[in-house]
């Protein structure tokens, strides 16, 4: 039986936690960061689903071709698969660059890199969705 934690003590005093996500104005770099995480989760879920479906015998390549051949919906479906993959890949490269070269971690540079990341990922994904 030891001392109670800081959080327990504060809660016991009845203190509320100040607002965070509800009031914070997230800069573009923070938004690109959370998008990287979201696309990462989406990829994990997607790839696991494909694996699970294949395990029970579904012909996933055929299924994808059928959906992809439908006119407009097919392009949208292709975009929704391509974007998480492309964005997360490019975001990952940006992270590797930041790890190796901390000099790139300046406010103006990271903001610029965020717009480049969003633009490049959207453009490449759109191209993949159309071809």
């Amino acid at each position, binding site marked *: 039986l030891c001392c109670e934690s*800081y959080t327990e003590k504060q809660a016991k005093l009845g203190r509320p936690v100040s*607002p965070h*996500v509800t009031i914070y*104005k997230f*800069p573009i*770099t923070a938004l690109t960061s959370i998008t990287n995480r979201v696309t990462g989760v989406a990829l994990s879920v997607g790839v696991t689903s494909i694996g699970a479906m294949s395990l029970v015998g579904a012909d996933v390549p055929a299924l994808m071709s059928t959906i992809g051949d439908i006119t407009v919906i097919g392009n949208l479906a292709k975009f929704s698969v391509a974007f998480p993959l492309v964005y997360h890949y490019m975001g990952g490269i940006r992270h590797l660059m930041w790890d190796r070269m901390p000099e790139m971690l*300046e*406010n103006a540079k990271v903001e610029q890199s965020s717009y480049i990341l969003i633009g490049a990922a959207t453009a490449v994904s759109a191209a993949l969705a159309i071809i």
Partner: protein
Amino acid sequence: GHSTRSLAGARASARARESERERRGEETMSLCTHALRKALGSGVGAWLPMAAAAAASTSGLGASAAAAAASGAGSTASLKSGLALGAFRTSASAAVPAPQYEEANKDFKIYRWDPDNGDKPRMETYTVDLNDCGPMILDVLLKIKDEQDSSLSFRRSCREGICGSCAMNIDGSNGLACLTRIDKDTETASTVAPLPHMFVVKDLVVDMANFYSQYKSVKPWLHSEGSEKVDGKEVYQSKEDRAKLDGLYECILCACCSTSCPSYWWNSDKYLGPAVLLQAYRWIIDSRDSITDERIQQLDDAFKLYRCKTIMNCAKVCPKGLNPGKAIAKIKKAHHGTLE
């Protein structure tokens, strides 16, 4: 300087204000504190005439001399200030002419929570005339506390961006209230909230104990036992080595950065946060320190340093222009051999 109004007129105004004050039944305030509080509320520009007024009054020259001194300085603030004696509201008695300017009213939504009653936290709206207020958010808070709601609680001290007391969330971003200019757009309301994801003591005051104990845990002082000392006392440091501390030593521990970090929101018990890690790096690259390896090793676990995901909110909000994100990246590099 010479007064621009007659002493008789000044005496009459002063007397009118004094009787009005008595009518209101106000306690006599010390002249100095009154002038000081007014100065803090009205911004630096009004400081000099009011300081002169306070000095004149306390030296026993009387209200009329104070009036002469204040109006002699020629500032419009002195007309409104009512000197040291009387009313400090612009809607004064008939003896003082009404102010000849437009009101620029802006709404401020401020986070309120009272520990003494069981209510939930709420946002309360206050309207402030920006034409009768200093330029910074701290001026707004002081004016509200002074004229509208004395229960509004917030920390403040230096009013010049060096003490770090008034750190809070203004219009969605963390910053120092004394250095954050009011957005002059009177159509939109501004929001003022405490530093995010901290336990609230009252209104805008948050508990900083965890933050301070994390700072203590990185041993933020020089360990020079193993360093080469000139005459047994001083460790010499080259200009180049001293230059490495620039951008690190200036931290005022205001906690704007740590409380802007989502990673610190979710793990403030185990992740040290950008402010503390910047200071850890400050001691790691100090050439005079002899326990560098130990400092680096102390941070090598899953939480203390590595909860940083390079979100970079920290560098964006630092009121001193420092870059904790970059310092953290450099500590991470030190863990695989390259300390720069």
